[in-house]
């Protein structure tokens, strides 16, 4: 909590906005008279926004409510961002910390694996995974996380390599703590700052990557939708109607802006600690 209070006003505001957005993502589709995938057969398709109209933000070219779809997309995109980042964190931190802490031959071997995976074109991996496992919703997160952990692993390894030379690690070793205990009690907590900051940068990355996968038509499965799918659909019809593109773009921009403000503020708040 004290950390939260130390953040500048702008970051606190961003956090609030983000929470509001998440809340809206949960509530709007529940409260709206329209479902995410519902086609208004009687209504106007590609309708422009209007508060008097049946659809406040208008409809897309298949007669679906843009307001509801924007927030349905928010559900998936935010979830993708969170879960993808979590998976990346989990793999990346444990892998990087292990490699960095034990250093030497194990480190060399583990980093060779990272090198190989780094050299694998990301899109190729995604396509093969999609083809192999079908387009399962959860698998998409896992695939994304499984690809994005590499940077995290490198970062954490570098930090750990530096940390293990520090006095407190030597002291802990003298005190008879086992390697794993040292890793858990002394190394991991000291990584928190870097990791948190990096995580706030990974969330938008995952959201953007998901949108690229949607561009290839391999994103989330209908009737689910995401900002990536919406933006891609909107981009196709932008010459006839700009709203289907504008609405998800604005939501995405807002989210990224908030995440970024929070990330920067966290970095500023946490880094002196790490240095000390």
């Amino acid at each position, binding site marked *: 909590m004290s950390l939260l209070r130390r953040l500048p006003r702008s970051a606190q505001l961003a956090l609030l906005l983000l929470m509001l957005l998440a809340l809206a993502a949960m509530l709007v589709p529940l409260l709206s008279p329209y479902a995410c995938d519902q086609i208004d057969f009687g209504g106007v398709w590609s309708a422009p926004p209007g508060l008097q109209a049946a659809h406040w933000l208008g409809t897309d070219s298949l007669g679906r409510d843009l307001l509801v779809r924007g927030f349905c997309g928010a559900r998936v995109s935010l979830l993708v961002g969170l879960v993808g980042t979590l998976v990346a964190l989990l793999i990346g931190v444990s892998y990087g910390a292990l490699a960095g802490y034990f250093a030497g031959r194990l480190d060399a071997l583990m980093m060779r694996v990272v090198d190989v995976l780094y*050299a*694998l074109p990301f899109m*190729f991996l995604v*396509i093969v995974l999609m083809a192999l496992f079908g387009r399962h919703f959860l698998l998409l997160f896992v695939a994304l996380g499984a690809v994005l952990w590499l940077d995290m692993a490198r970062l954490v390894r570098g930090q750990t390599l530096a940390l293990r030379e520090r006095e407190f690690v030597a002291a802990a070793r003298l005190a008879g703590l086992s390697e794993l205990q040292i890793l858990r009690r002394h190394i991991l907590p000291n990584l928190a700052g870097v990791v948190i900051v990096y995580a706030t940068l990974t969330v938008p990355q995952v959201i953007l990557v998901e949108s690229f996968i949607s561009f290839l038509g391999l994103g989330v499965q209908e009737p689910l939708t995401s900002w990536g799918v919406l933006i891609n659909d909107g981009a196709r019809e932008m010459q006839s109607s700009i709203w289907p593109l504008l609405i998800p773009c604005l939501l995405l*921009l807002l989210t990224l802006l908030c995440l970024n403000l929070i990330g920067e503020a966290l970095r500023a708040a946490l880094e002196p600690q790490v240095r000390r």
Partner: protein
Amino acid sequence: MLNLVLRRLLTGIPTLLLLLTLCFFLMRLAPGGPFDRERSLPPAVETALRAEYHLDESLWQQYRRYLGGIAQGDFGPSFQYEGYRVQELIAAGLPVSLQLGGAALLLALLAGGALAVLAVRKPGGPLDRALMSLTLLGICLPNYVVAPLLVLLFALTLGWLPAGGWQPGQWRDLVLPVAALALPQIAYIARILRSSLLETLAAPYIRAARARGLSESRVLLVHAIKPALLPLISYLGPAAAALLTGSVVIEQVFGIPGLGRYFVQAALNRDYTLVLGVVTLYGALVLLCNLLVDLAYGALDPRQRAA
């Protein structure tokens, strides 16, 4: 130094081999084959085609045949583009991608660097905030939105530049794709450089330099920039490899015959040999870029050189 380069190049070979093997078998796990078409082939024809491309052999035999080919510099026939060898396709696409990606990289470095230097003049000031918000826009707008927008504006509305196409030596064909390709990179580079510049500017030796009465631009461009480049360089390694091998979106929107489309289309079409060809190329480029990054690190950071 030379020793390091040689050692890294040598260890690169088993890494690539590992990569190749991984992809070879991964690719074959994916359902569907190169001869599945919307209009399915008669069984006899398909059998003949499979035999022609040795798909009727065991996977292990195919793997050995493939490695044998590579040892002789042949990456095999493309499954999708009949009568073409993989190396011919890559040789045709690579120069285009290098040209495009190189130009975009250069533009991104110049523009991103300039933005970062402008922004750190007054950290937190209105210009800094405006620039950083702008870069955020650059990061979050996907290039499949930006590229068509550029075409709409500069090709269709203003009529200044072509909407697509690629004629060797035509600079006008380059402008829009390079801009679209560079835009997000400008944003990333500006942000990374800005934050590392800010960090270096807070260091004691910079304060000392300022105290000696050196001008602000001299402090910035001579003393601060060198250490501040380190995080940028580690970002640039993989980014450069990606840029130089082309972008599927940009190539699709602008109709450019580069390598980028092969990454996606070869995988989608199960063009096994072409996939492996571009993966190998990309892998080699990534390894090379990483080596360059490490060399640059050594040159810029005296501590690393000692170690």
